[in-house]
């Protein structure tokens, strides 16, 4: 039995901090890093030779489905999936039922996350009531509840004036507006990337331009308002170019990419398997190459999973009727590390340090491994080869596109708030 008073020592790992990497033992006592040094002893000793130790990962984009779709995921099952993936904080997307456009729902999500206690569950807020794109939510009330990131994810805010007003409010309250970029009129009934595969398969296409047009518009709105905007799940080469140019101009924009958009292409859909249906859709190798370049050169700030559980029967429909979305939390590190060669500090920056800043939680998440810092920690490697099995995931749903695939790199232990929640790849609670 592990109790909260026990000290935990992480032995033999390489500490990954923004300013340095070095081999050291790390001791955690009462939720705080108490010592970093050689040959430390403690009540629990975690073997971490060959591993990296960094601040726990922060996911800017998690669908926990509670309240409303508990058959697909709950805050508890999603939290467990998160810590197995090394995440100690997840931003819960607001497209729940009821939507997170009001104080009560936001309080429920945060409180439920706290009771589960596996990781920090940070409710995001909707930008508009019911995510309908017309009336702004009570930003100040939600901000008082600690909501710092607002999005209508699942849809983009179509009306430019509504979006401009949201950015103006966010600027005044120092909040982050996070946009799902999709011009809805261009994607009616869309099933997959509008390209060669889609044309042959005879399904409605989701053109790259539908994303890029909203990225372009929102960059203009950022230029006008001076507010920060975060661009979710970039999927196209053109979007990367637009964000790169906006950053060169000095605009306060940030961007994320999902593990699946940097690893999978639209060709996987030629068998009509809805497991590969996701929004925005899987695109082409040219887009993947551009996204990789964006990660390397800093155009893209964060990896975010867009973990989107769906109950099994909903994916046993035709491709056009099945809901879009795929699991991501438990496979994120392995997929990223398998898809693109990144240095450990770059991985930690993309998965922990930068998203903590974007989510406005960098006062306690995404911190360096140093004495006195809160103990939200991931211990991971980039070498373990493992095979994904949808039947062995902690999520309530099984809609991973990586079933049966081999990934390289795995989370070994996770510590949240000084508690060992994952040991040797197994959830402890």
């Amino acid at each position: 039995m592990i109790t909260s008073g026990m000290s935990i020592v992480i032995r033999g790992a390489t500490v990954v901090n923004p300013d340095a990497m070095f081999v050291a033992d790390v001791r955690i006592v009462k939720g705080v890093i108490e010592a970093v040094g050689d040959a430390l002893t403690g009540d629990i000793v975690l073997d971490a030779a060959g591993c990296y130790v960094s601040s726990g990962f922060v996911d800017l984009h998690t669908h926990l489905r509670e309240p409303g779709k508990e058959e697909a995921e709950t805050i508890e099952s999603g939290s467990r999936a998160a810590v197995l993936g090394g995440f100690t904080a997840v931003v819960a997307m607001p497209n729940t039922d009821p939507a997170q456009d009001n104080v009560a729902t936001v309080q429920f999500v945060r409180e439920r996350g706290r009771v589960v206690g596996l990781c920090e569950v940070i409710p995001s807020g909707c930008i508009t009531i019911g995510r309908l794109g017309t009336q702004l939510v009570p930003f100040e009330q939600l901000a008082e509840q600690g909501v710092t990131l607002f999005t209508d994810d699942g849809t983009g805010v179509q009306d430019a004036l509504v979006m401009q007003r949201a950015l103006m409010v966010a600027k005044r309250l120092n909040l982050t507006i996070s946009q799902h970029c999709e011009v809805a009129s261009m994607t009616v009934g869309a099933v997959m990337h509008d390209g060669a595969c889609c044309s042959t398969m005879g399904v409605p296409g989701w053109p790259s331009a539908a994303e890029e047009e909203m990225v372009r518009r929102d960059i203009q709105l950022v230029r006008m308002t001076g507010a920060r905007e975060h661009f979710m799940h970039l999927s196209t080469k053109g979007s990367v170019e637009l964000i790169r140019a906006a950053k060169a101009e000095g605009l306060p924009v940030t961007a994320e990419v999902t593990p699946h958009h940097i690893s999978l292409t639209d060709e996987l859909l030629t068998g009509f398997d809805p497991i590969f249906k996701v929004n925005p859709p899987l695109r082409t190798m040219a887009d993947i190459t551009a996204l990789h370049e964006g990660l390397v050169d800093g155009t893209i700030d964060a990896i975010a999973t867009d973990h989107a559980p769906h109950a099994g029967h909903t994916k046993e429909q035709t491709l056009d009727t099945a809901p879009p979305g795929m699991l991501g939390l438990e496979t994120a590190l392995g997929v990223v590390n398998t898809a693109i060669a990144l240095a450990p500090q770059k991985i930690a920056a993309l998965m922990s340090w930068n998203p903590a800043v974007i989510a406005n939680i960098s006062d306690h998440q995404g911190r360096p491994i140093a004495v006195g810092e809160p103990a939200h920690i991931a211990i991971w490697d980039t070498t373990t080869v493992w095979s994904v099995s949808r039947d062995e995931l902690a999520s309530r749903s099984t809609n991973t596109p990586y079933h049966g695939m081999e990934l390289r790199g795995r989370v070994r232990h996770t510590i949240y708030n000084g508690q060992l929640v994952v040991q040797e790849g197994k959830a402890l609670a």
Partner: protein
Amino acid sequence: MKHLLSTRDLSTEEIVSILAMTDHMAEINSRAVPKVPALRGRTVASVFFEDSTRTRLSFETAATRLSSEVMTFTASSSSVNKGESLRDTIETLSAMGVDAFVVRHKSSGAPQQIRQWTDAAVINAGDGWHQHPTQALLDAYTITRNFNELNSMNGRTVAIVGDIKHSRVARSDIDVFTRLGAKVVLVAPAAFLPSSLDGWGVSTADSLDDVIGVVDVVYMLRIQRERMDAAQMPSLREYSSLFALTPERAARMQIHALLLHPGPINRGVEMIVDPSLVPGSRILQQVTNGISVRMAVLFSLLGGDATTTLQNGAEA
């Protein structure tokens, strides 16, 4: 060959061999009693999640002429309306003992998914905008037999006219015609073409007048009025003025050229000419050939030792 989901699943040799078997079936159909016991004891389920009376009757007639039992399922009168999932519907029908499912569905790819949930053969009778393989086979049969070239369409040019983007017939025909050696030119406004024609091996024209006088086959697609919204075409009149087959355009067809249409014809929309007045029209022949082609497909999938049973049937 276990299933027929897409023309792309067929090798060119298999296409040629189905066309050859269709000749046998056509001979059976020309008899006074057009029926053979080739599939006696087999059960073919026609499962139509989307209405299509003519395709369903064509398949059921084909199955009956091979002495198969026929089970009919239509979505409008079924548990689908009670919210039963596609998987549950197929597993339930499978449990009744089905050798082949003939599936029509409004969603592209539905037959590919259905295959996972049954051991029976699955024949695609049209899925969404994706494929309608037996239509392509009957079209290829009609064209090759009219031109007396049994195994190829070499040197022939086919104009496919209309809404290519939303047409399973076009996707199937293009694949089969090009693989049999034909040149295919798509005649359509930009909104009726898919975003990419990579790998299709076709050319395009944006007016029927540009090609009508030089092609060997004019293949008119059915235009669905509901597609004529603002996002697709400015107006039906504009469409008809550029792409409909008028008496004037029909008169410019080459003397040997054929006119085909998958039916049902939308008179006054894509067909302003009366097809019975076009000498090259083979539209009703397509319907007749459809039964022979579907017999050949059913027999190829379910026939076991093909030639023996067929010959026994011929003697019966």
